[in-house]
C-alpha cells in the first residue's frame, strides 16, 4: 500500500511541478526583457534568452527545469539574481517553526475544548467552546493577528510586535512565536474542537463504553483509554488536513508579524513578478502539503486497522 501511495505521490509531484511551470509560462511579460531591464537592446535580450534556454520548445524547457529541480537548483531570482534554493533555504526554518508551533497550539486548545464540551454537554463550558469554534472559523487570521499585537505588544507590552530571528528554543524565540502561533492556530483549533466534540459525543454513547461502565471501570480510564482511542480517529484526519492548511496560512501570518519566511518571499515575488521565486516557493509549499497528507494517510492505517488501502 505504501509503495503504491509513494508512486502516486511521485506522479502528483510531477503534476504540481508541471502546473506551476506552465502557469508561470502563461504569465504575460517576457522574462528575458524583465531581467535585461528597460534600457536593454534587443540583441541583449536575445543573448539572455539564449543563455536561459528560453528559445527552446516549452516541453524541453520544462524537462530542463525538472532536471535542475531534482538537483536542488530552482533557478535564479529576476530581481536579486540570488539563487532561489538559497533564498528559500534561509527562510524555510522560520516557516516550518511557525507551522509546527501553530499546530501544537491548535491541537492543545482544540482537543481540550472539544473533549470538555463533549463530556459536559450543554453546560456553559460547552456553550463557550461552541461559540469559540464558530468564531475561530469565521475570524480573519490577519485581523486576529493585528488585534493580538494591539493588546499584547502595544498596550500590555509583554510580547514583541513581530519578527522571528531568535531560535525557538530560547525564551526570546518562544516569545516571538506565541502570538503568530495563536493567530495561525486558532482556525485549526476551532475545527479540531468541533470534530473532537462530535466524535467524542458519538463514542461515549456507544455500547462498549456502557459495558466498560457496567464492569466498573474507572471513569478516567473509560474516557482516557476506551473512548479516546476511537474518538481520535476522525480527529487525526482533521489535524492532518489542517497541518497542510497551516502551511498555506503561514503566508498571511508571516506578513502580519513581519516574519522572514517563505510566505513573505512568495508575496514579494508575486508583487514584483519574479517568476522563478514564485515557482520555487509554490513548488516547495505544495510538495510539502502532499507529503504531509501522505504521512497522515499512513498514520491513519496504523491507528485504525479497519482501514486498508489495499483493495
Amino acid at each position: 500500500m505504501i509503495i503504491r501511495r509513494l508512486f502516486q505521490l511521485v506522479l502528483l509531484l510531477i503534476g504540481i511541478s508541471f502546473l506551476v511551470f506552465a502557469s508561470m509560462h502563461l504569465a504575460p511579460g517576457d522574462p528575458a526583457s524583465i531581467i535585461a531591464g528597460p534600457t536593454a537592446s534587443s540583441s541583449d535580450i536575445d543573448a539572455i534568452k539564449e543563455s536561459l534556454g528560453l528559445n527552446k520548445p516549452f516541453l524541453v524547457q520544462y524537462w530542463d527545469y525538472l532536471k535542475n529541480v531534482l538537483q536542488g537548483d530552482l533557478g535564479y531570482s529576476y530581481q536579486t539574481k540570488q539563487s532561489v534554493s538559497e533564498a528559500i533555504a534561509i527562510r524555510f526554518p522560520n516557516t516550518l517553526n511557525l507551522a509546527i508551533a501553530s499546530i501544537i497550539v491548535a491541537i492543545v486548545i482544540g482537543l481540550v475544548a472539544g473533549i470538555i464540551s463533549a463530556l459536559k454537554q450543554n453546560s456553559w463550558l460547552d456553550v463557550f467552546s461552541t461559540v469559540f469554534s464558530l468564531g475561530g472559523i469565521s475570524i480573519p487570521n490577519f485581523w486576529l493577528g493585528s488585534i493580538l499585537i494591539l493588546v499584547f505588544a502595544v498596550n500590555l507590552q509583554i510580547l514583541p510586535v513581530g519578527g522571528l530571528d531568535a531560535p525557538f528554543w530560547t525564551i526570546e524565540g518562544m516569545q516571538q512565536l506565541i502570538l503568530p502561533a495563536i493567530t495561525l492556530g486558532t482556525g485549526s483549533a476551532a475545527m479540531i474542537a468541533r470534530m473532537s466534540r462530535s466524535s467524542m459525543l458519538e463514542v461515549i454513547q456507544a455500547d462498549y463504553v456502557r459495558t466498560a461502565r457496567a464492569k466498573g471501570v474507572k471513569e478516567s480510564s473509560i474516557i482516557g483509554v476506551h473512548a479516546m482511542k476511537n474518538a481520535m480517529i476522525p480527529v487525526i484526519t482533521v489535524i492532518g488536513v489542517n497541518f497542510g492548511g497551516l502551511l498555506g496560512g503561514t503566508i498571511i501570518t508571516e506578513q502580519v508579524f513581519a516574519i522572514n519566511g517563505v510566505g513573505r518571499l512568495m508575496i514579494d515575488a508575486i508583487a514584483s513578478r519574479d517568476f522563478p521565486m514564485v515557482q520555487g516557493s509554490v513548488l516547495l509549499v505544495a510538495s510539502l502539503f502532499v507529503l504531509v497528507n501522505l504521512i497522515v494517510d499512513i498514520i491513519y492505517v496504523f491507528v485504525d486497522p479497519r482501514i486498508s488501502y489495499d483493495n
Partner: protein
Amino acid sequence: METVPNPQLSPTVKKVKKDSFLLDTWKKLIKNRLAVVGLIIIILQIVIAIAAPLITSYDPARQNLEGTELPMFTEGHWLGTDNYGRDMWSRIAYGARISLVVGSIAVALGLVGGITLGLLAGYYRKLDGIIMRIVDLLFSFPGILLAMLIIAVLGTSLVNVAIAISIWSIPSCARIVRGSVLSVKKQEYVMAMKSLGASDLRIMFKHILPNCTAPIIVFATMRMATAILSTASLSYLGLGAQPPTPEWGAMISQGQAYMWTSPHMTIIPGIAIMLTVFAFNVVGDGLRDALDPNMKVNQ
C-alpha cells in the same frame, strides 16, 4: 350497506400533502436559531450594500485632510474617519458591496466549472479518471496558495481575485457533484429516460442535476464564507483590491500602520468581515441540517 366514515382517514390524507421542497427546507432552517441570526446578518448586509449611497453621507473615497483619524462617535462620522479623513461608515458600507459581489461572482463561476466537471466525471466513466486526477492535482495546493498562483499569472486586481477564487472552488465542487451523480445515476428513472431515448445532456441537466441540488446549495453557502474571507485576505496581502478601493481586507492592511493612534481603523473592518463570514457559515450549517435526507428519515 352503510359505510362507516373513518374519522381519522380524511385528516391524515390531507396531512400527507407535503410542503414543497423549498417551504420544507425553510421551515426547518428557521427553527435553527443560529441560522436565523446568520440570515438576518446576510439580509442586513445585502440591504446595506444596495442602499449604500442612501445611507451614507460621504463618498467613500472623499478625503478630508482636516478631519483625519477622528475617533468613533464623532459628530457626522459615527464610525470615525481614517488617516485620509475618509468616512469609515461609508467605506464599510461600500465595502459590503465589494465583498458580496466578488464573493458571488467567484462562487458562481466556481459552481459552473465544478458542476460541469462533476457531471461529466460522474456520468461518463471514460472521463472520470482524467477529470478526477486534475481535481486531485488542484487539491494538492494548500489553502489560498492556488489562488495566489493564479494571481501571480493574471496580475493583481479584484477581478483576478474573483477568477482565482472561482478556480480554487472548482475541485471541491466537482467532487461533491460527482459523488451525487454516481449515486443518482443508477436509479431506475435515469434508466427509463435512457431507454426512452433522451439525450445525455437532457438526462444530465434535467434529471440528474436537480437531484444534486441539496449538496450544491450547502456548498455554495459555505463557499461564500470562504470566498469573502479569501478576498479580504488577498487584498490584505496587496494582491487584490488596490487603494483607494474600500475593500475590508485592504482597509485592515492600511489601518495596521495607524494601530497605535487609531485602532478603530483596524478593528471595524475586521468585525465586518467576521460577522459576514460567520453568517454564511451558520446558514450553511443550518441548510445542511435542513437538507440532510438522513434527518428526514429520523423524524
